[in-house]
């Protein structure tokens, strides 16, 4: 265990969030079994009131997840001085087996939280709580992930022992290295570029069509937005980061969050996360378009979410393309 102030705050924070989600899930379970809109019973009244509390809690949790994701990566970066060979977050996260899973769980929980809030938002637009059961089913599904995150993060911090020799970004993300991350870095640049711009283009076209015409390409857009999220992260590791660092061997996806690179990573990752949440949100709402009381509300929400995704992804593409064009650094030789 490393008693770093940020470690303590992340730890305390995630335990608090975990407790809050568990609390919500407990009432979620009651809602799933006992919800009856027609009944005017005390229980039903209590449950209806609890939904206010739970949506408040979930919005806080969503915001917390976002902050904790970035704080987690930043902390990993700061702690890298404690480990020989670790030069940035990439190395620190690799100190034990729980580092990367924690990060991935944080991303997943953020997107799941976003999905829940989208469902909740739609549900609140209808007079008859049409999505109440689905919403709380999703909450029951989210709870284990949040618990897992708290446990895995706890395990990560508890197993951090300073000075364990770890691979730093140099070796972990080097072309010769092994493992998934190395595979991404080793991915040939040209195909990766084509894949990235292709996926982005397709997503944006589908989104635009859906935004203007409604219907038709919506499901495809939603799926593509998730694929593009993955492709973009891969592209970031494969070639985008390289242009930011102006160093052909530096593929670290975390260092661009640092001040040395003007915190460029924050808008990039925020844009990606926003895009993913918007895209999954659109997809989540599709099965419910037929519900009578939501017939007017859902297409409107979907439109807004689509717009959000489009703007976010375009911002991401613009920033990265700008970096590629306006830097003196050329990758061609490598």
């Amino acid at each position, binding site marked *: 265990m*490393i*008693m*770093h*102030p*940020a*470690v*303590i*705050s*992340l730890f*305390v*924070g995630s335990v*608090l969030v975990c407790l*809050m989600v568990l609390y919500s899930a407990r009432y979620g379970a009651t809602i799933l079994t006992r919800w009856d809109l027609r009944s005017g019973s005390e229980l039903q009244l209590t449950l209806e*009131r609890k939904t*206010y*509390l739970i*949506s*408040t*809690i979930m919005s*806080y949790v969503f915001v*917390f997840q976002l*902050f*904790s994701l*970035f*704080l987690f990566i*930043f*902390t990993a970066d*700061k702690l890298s*001085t*404690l480990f*020989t060979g670790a030069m940035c977050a990439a190395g620190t996260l690799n100190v034990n087996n729980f580092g990367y899973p924690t990060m991935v769980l944080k991303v997943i929980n953020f997107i799941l939280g976003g999905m829940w809030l989208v469902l909740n938002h739609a549900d609140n637009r209808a007079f008859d709580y049409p999505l109440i059961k689905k919403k709380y089913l999703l909450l029951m599904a989210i709870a284990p992930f949040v618990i897992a995150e708290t446990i895995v993060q706890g395990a990560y911090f508890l197993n951090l022992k*300073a*000075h364990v020799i770890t691979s730093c970004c140099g070796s972990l993300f080097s072309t010769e290295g092994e493992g998934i991350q190395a595979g991404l870095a080793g991915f040939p640049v040209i195909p990766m570029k084509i894949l990235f711009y292709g996926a982005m283009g397709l997503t944006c076209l589908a989104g635009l069509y859906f935004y203007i015409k409604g219907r038709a390409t919506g499901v495809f857009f939603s799926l593509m937005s998730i694929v593009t999220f993955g492709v973009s992260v891969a592209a970031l590791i494969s070639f985008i980061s390289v242009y930011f660092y102006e160093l052909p061997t530096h593929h670290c996806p975390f260092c661009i969050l640092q*001040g040395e690179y003007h915190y460029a990573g924050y808008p990039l990752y925020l844009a990606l996360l926003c895009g993913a949440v918007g895209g999954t949100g659109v997809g989540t709402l599709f099965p419910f378009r037929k519900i009578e009381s939501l017939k007017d509300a859902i297409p409107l929400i979907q439109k807004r979410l689509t717009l959000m995704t489009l703007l976010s992804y375009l911002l991401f593409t613009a920033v990265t393309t700008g970096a590629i064009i306006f830097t003196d650094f050329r990758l061609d030789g490598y």
Partner: protein
Amino acid sequence: MAWIEKQRNILDFALSSLVRRWGKNLALVMVYTVIVFVLASILFMTHSIKREASLILRGSPEIVVQRILAGRHDLTPGRYIEKLAKIPGVREVKGRLWGYYYEPSTGANYTMIVTDEHRENVGTIAIGAGVARSSDVREGDMIPFRSSDGSYVSFEVTGVLTPESELVASDVIEVSERDFRSLFAMPEGYFTDLTLKVRNRKEVVVVADKIRRLLPDTRPILRDEILRTYDAIFDWRSGLLIVVFTGAILAFSIFSWDKATSLSFEEKKEMGVLKAVGWETSEVIAMKSWEGIVVSLTSFLLGVILAYMHVFFGSSILFMPVLKGWSVLYPHFKLVPYVDPYQLAALFFLTVVPYTAATIIPSWRAAIIDPDSVMRL
């Protein structure tokens, strides 16, 4: 736009509701501010020392070799120098002569060091600013030292180090080699320890390994390890202080919970009125959240600003003794303010998240009051 206007309206009400109970809320803000202030002071202070240490100590020797005798630090024979110099990759080996001198009249503990430049200046010393202060001497003064045989030897002060160097050399007394050896009766041909320079930075660990095998009675101390350890130490120190302080945060959270749950009759009635005149539950929750945001933001910003002034303008007069321990010779130094957004983020997490968590349920409870309750009062 309507949304913004609505939030501003609700904020208006939240503010007037806070102002109406100003006594209670002022107490809350004050306690909150003090907590942020203390935590921020600790973070700023330790972070600055940490950064300073990691920057400055890059100048320290790459490897220090100490001889160990029966588990204790012992004098290192000069012949070890040639032995170590033969290790491939070692560029330079030097014998270091230094030690502690306890001055009974002031009760202070000084560090005596022999340097190349001062090696031949017999009878004179250069002293750190802290030494000059504690024994009240200036350049040209004579200071007597009690040698190991009990006699007193006086040295002339030929130089006082600048105040800016206090962080590294406040307690240093620079002395010639002959004076050092005679003062402490240290035998010729022995050194306190040895320092090594290595040709290639990457080979330090390999060299250290070779030293351990070549001279099993020594231990090499690597600069990187020292740097890492300093990092760990200050993390620990601030971490421990924070853990100790968590008690305070906990108490504060309970206090805010209590403040938020124990709605007075007047407050309950107010919530009821809001509900009755057409506010919705989520709007009352929003109002309560705004109250929380106002309290948190005010206290957070105020606490951080005060802490910054305290640490970097006021030399952390309140906490330095805890962190530095007590001693006769306090090095006087002004910390260079290494502050970054990251510290503020960590601080925000440590203070605002527990407070918010503690107030969610109470504000919801206030918000679900039945609108018709005011009619039944």
